[in-house]
Structures are given as C-alpha cells and as structure tokens.
C-alpha cells in the first residue's frame, strides 16, 4: 500500500486501530481492511498542513506507547492482544486527563469520519444510504 502520510509502522498502528474501532459482532459485516479504511485515512490526511500531520503522528506515537500507563504492560499497542487493545482504547476514551482524552478523540473523529462516510457500514446498521447519497431528504 502506498502511504502518503505515514511511515509503515504508523500505518500498522492505523490499521490496528481501525480493526478495534470498527469491530462488529456480526461476522457478515465488512471489516475495515475489506473497506480499505486505513488507506482512505492516509489519503485524507495527506492534505493536512505539516504541523497538523506532525501532531497526528505524535498522537499515534502516544497511543502506541501509553499502554504502559493504562494496562500496566510493558508492551506497545501493536503487541497487545485484541482484548487488551479494546480495554486500553475504552480507558483512553474515558480518561480523566484532558490532553490524553482530547488527543484520542481527535484521532477517533478522523477515523470515524472516513469510516461512516462509506455506504456499506451505514447499510449494515440499517441506514438508507441511497437516500443520503442522493440527498433526497424529505421527498
């Protein structure tokens, strides 16, 4: 996969985050890797100013290394088990420290914006994407 914004390691973190953020209990639901969400996020971020891109990369670095503080494991995010990753991300979302929580929410917003703009996931949760796409609204 050609990366516009991230190094391979950063891209691996993005892919792992996508898997956790958009996990579904229904095995029939499309996975983020099938929808290529990581690549979409990568392209989406490519137009960001260099300062903001650096912030996002710093954000990824922090998310990768902060399990040491939150789940008390001397392992980074990529080395955690999926269950530990979920637990860690939930703790970040509920984190008392404003800066950490904000960093996490900023990243989450970018991921969710790109994911929920896709037709398949919205259909899977029962939204009528066709009417959204055609912007019919109230007909």
């Amino acid at each position, binding site marked *: 996969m050609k990366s516009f914004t991230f190094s391979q390691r950063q891209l691996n973190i993005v892919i792992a985050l996508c898997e956790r953020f*958009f*996990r579904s209990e229904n095995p029939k639901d499309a996975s983020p890797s099938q929808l290529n969400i990581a690549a979409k996020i990568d392209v989406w971020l490519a137009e960001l*100013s260099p300062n903001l891109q650096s912030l996002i990369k710093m954000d990824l670095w922090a998310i990768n290394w902060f399990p040491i503080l939150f789940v008390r494991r001397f392992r980074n995010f990529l080395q955690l088990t999926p269950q530990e990753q979920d637990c860690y991300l*939930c703790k970040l*979302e509920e984190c008392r420290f404003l800066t950490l929580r904000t960093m996490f929410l900023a990243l989450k917003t970018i991921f969710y*914006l790109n994911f929920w703009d896709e037709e398949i996931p*919205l259909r899977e949760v029962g939204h009528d994407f066709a009417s959204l796409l055609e912007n019919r*609204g109230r007909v």
Partner: protein
Amino acid sequence: MRLEGSQLQDAYLEDRCDVLVLGSGTAGAIAAMEAARAGKKVILLEEGKYFAPEVKRNFKIAESVRSLYRNQGGMVAFPWGDTPPVVITLGCGAGGSSALTGGVCFRIPDKVHRHWAKELGLTELALDKLLPFYHKVEELFSIRETPQELRSKGVFKFEQGAQRLGITCKPVKRNMTDCRGCSRCNFICPHGAKQSVDIVCLPKAEECGAKLYFEFRATRLIAKNGKVQAVAGEILDSQKKRKGKFTIHADTFVLAMGTVHTAHFLLKNRACNNSGLVGKGLTLHPAIRIYGLFDEVLNSHQGALQSVYVDDFMDDGITLIAIHVPPNIISVTLPGIGPGHREFVRLSKQMAAFGAFYHDQPSGRVWRGLGREPFVTYRLSSQAKAGLVKACQVIGQIYFAAGARQILLPIWSKTVISSPDELKSLTPETVKGKWFEISSYHPLGTARMGLDRHHSVVNQFGQTWDYPNLWISDGATLPTSIGVNSQEPIMALALRNTLHMLEVGNNRQ
C-alpha cells in the same frame, strides 16, 4: 476572470487594482461585489481552492471536510483554566464559512444594538442605522422563514416537549430558495438552495470585472508613508505548498479573512496595533449539541438542518437552536468503540438533536503562531459554564417531556442520562468546564470597532486607525459577541462598510 494558483505557470505575479479584497467569505465577497459594481478594478484573494458549484455539490461529507474546512475542521482554541479545547469551524475556499453555515440568519438583538449605541457610544451601530442594510441583505440573499414542512420529526418531538413546558419555538430565518431539507447545509448544499456568498456575490463580482485569485495566501502588508501600498504573499500549489510569490498594489485594501485570520495577519505584520487590542477580546459563542433518544424511528436528518430556535433564555445568555446533521456525521460524535459504538449509530435513527450556544464575554485571544496558522486560546468563564449546564438541563427536560428514553450530553463521564432526576443532579458545581465537548461557529471581535485609536482597532465603519486606506470588514470588528448567529450581521456590516468606503474614496478623489 478567475485565476487558480495551482494552474499558474509563472513563479511570480505582480498586479495592480483599485480595491484589493483579502478573503472570499461573507464579508469579502460582498465587498468585492459592491466595489466591482461601483466600477472599481477589484482583485479578490482567497487562500482556499476553487471548486465549481456543480463539483462541490457532489462531494461526500468527508471530502467536504477535507477540501472546504480550514485545517480539515481541526482548528482548535487551546484551553486556558477550567476549559476544554474548543473546535472552531472555519471555511477555506470560495465563500469561506458562508458556504458551510446552516444558512441561519438573525439580526443583532435590539438589546445588543442598544448596548453598543448607548453604553459604548457606537451610534453608527444603532438599529435604525443598520436597518436599511438588513433589508438589503435580506432581499439579496433571499432570507426568509423556514417553512413548517421542512421541520424534521426530531424537531416536532422537541416542539411537543417544549409546548408541555411552556417554552416557545420560533421558526429560523435562512438564506435559502427551494430548500429540500436534506440537512447537509454544513457540507455544501447539494441542491444549490443555500444562497451563500459564493452563489450570490462572487459570480456578480466576476461579471462586473472583478478578478478572483484562488490559492493565493497573503502574508505581508507593505506600508509606506502612513498608507498601505501593497500586499505580498505566496502562490500555492494543489498541496497548499508555496510554488511562487505575488505582489499586488492597490489604492484601497479590505481585510476579510475572518475573525481569527484577520487578527493573525495584522499581528504577523505588526500592523494597526497601537491599541494593543489586535487578537484580544475574542468571543466564540461556545456551542454544544444534545441528543434525545426515542423509542420510535425519527430519521431526523430528513428535514432542514436548522429550522426552529428558542429565545426564552436569552436573558441568561442562552440561545437554543435545532441542529441535526446526517447520520454519517452524527456517528462521528457518538461515544464508544467497536460493537458498542455501532449500536449507538444504529440507534441514531431514533435520535433528535438540539444545539445551544452561550452569549459569552471576551475571554479568548488570537496569538501569532509559529507556523502559518494562528495560535488561539480561550477561557470558559464560570458564567458560560453555568449557561451551558443550564442549556443541557433545559434541552434534557424538553426531551424527557417529549417522551425521550435517554439523553446524550456532551459532558465527559455524564454522557448518557436516563432520567429527569439524574439530569437535575447536573449543576455548575458538579460539572467542570473542561468536561464539556464544545465547538464554535461564530468567532467574533479580535479587531474591534471603537471611538478612538487607543481603545479600538477600527472606527465605526471598519476603517483602521493606522492606515486610512486599510479597512476591516468581517466578524473581527464586532465590539462584543451578539448571542445569535453572526452571518446576517456580518453581511449587513460588510455592505454598509463597503458603501461607506467607496463614498470616502470618491470624496477623496
């Protein structure tokens, strides 16, 4: 004539005109249109890209955010004290933020007009002086009440609850023609119904001979002998990187880059700051959004994005206004990860949303940033925090009165509220300011109007005290926040300022 930086072959461009307008947003587009109509040679500079209306109408939401929002929607005011980071939504492209508003148009409330005229002595800002300009912009931009049939089911639910509590909902006025109610106003109206300045003013300016330069970032103000002589800057490529330079000479200059960036431009150039007030006095109208979860499917995105408002709490500084964006965007704001989040997104069909913002006192500041972008700080006052808590309670009570099962609040650790009693436990003492998720859509007041050069940056018509040929014509000049959406006031003031500027220019000649 339209020029796009990324299409240019030359690495240097020099030009000359009568009126140079910086920024193609609400104020800039009106200034360019009026000056061009008056027969002036006008150049309008815009940092953002140009997209033809038929192209941007077909953008998906993520694409709109990427292409038309400044910093991809990531402009943040850094918190000071018990304050959360505040996301400031600004446009960057043809029409600026005007292309991304919900189209809501309010006149400045009488109370604010009276305060400006009587207590601050700004008699030119009295209601009777601005009334003709309100009338003109209301006609020009087809500002009218949102018809009842465009109210979504979520809004009807809110109205039911409000009625039970004796609260009155009033129809919002918007600059729309033939709105079909798809709630996508914030991401470019797909039907071209929204009469934003890129639809109304920029084509007229172009017809009258104005030159519109896109992907031109102004960085330097060149002044000599007490007058601004030229503006210089960078020509950008499609990746917003510098590919060349430009210098444009003019007789008159209009700054209309928006409240944040106008102040930043002046600060970077150390201009017009004898009073020391440039960048200070920023107000943000801190805004929140509250969801009510009902048992039945509402599909509240089927209706106008913003159709009714409540002004019963204006004395407390609170304005409530309907807002319901499409599910793609609501999903982004819902809590949780994995299956828990998916469940919330599934339930979003049963949600109704209402927003609130607070009429805040100046407590923010624009600083000179290290890079291209300004550094903005903001402090949420205790009154503003109390106002936002009250807004949560009022909207929550209304939704519960309408039969909501749960309320989703933008407050950390108190996101889901399941009963009116739980709601009552929210008080300014039990909620910290930094627990809120706040955004801002109406930054105002970083180069405020006033009566003398020691206490203001511009006079009552937007003319800077330091350079008689430099005018500021955007939200930066408003002396205080206004407690309502700022689009129409900025339009009316821009129109008035431009006509006055042309008159002054003619008299000088």
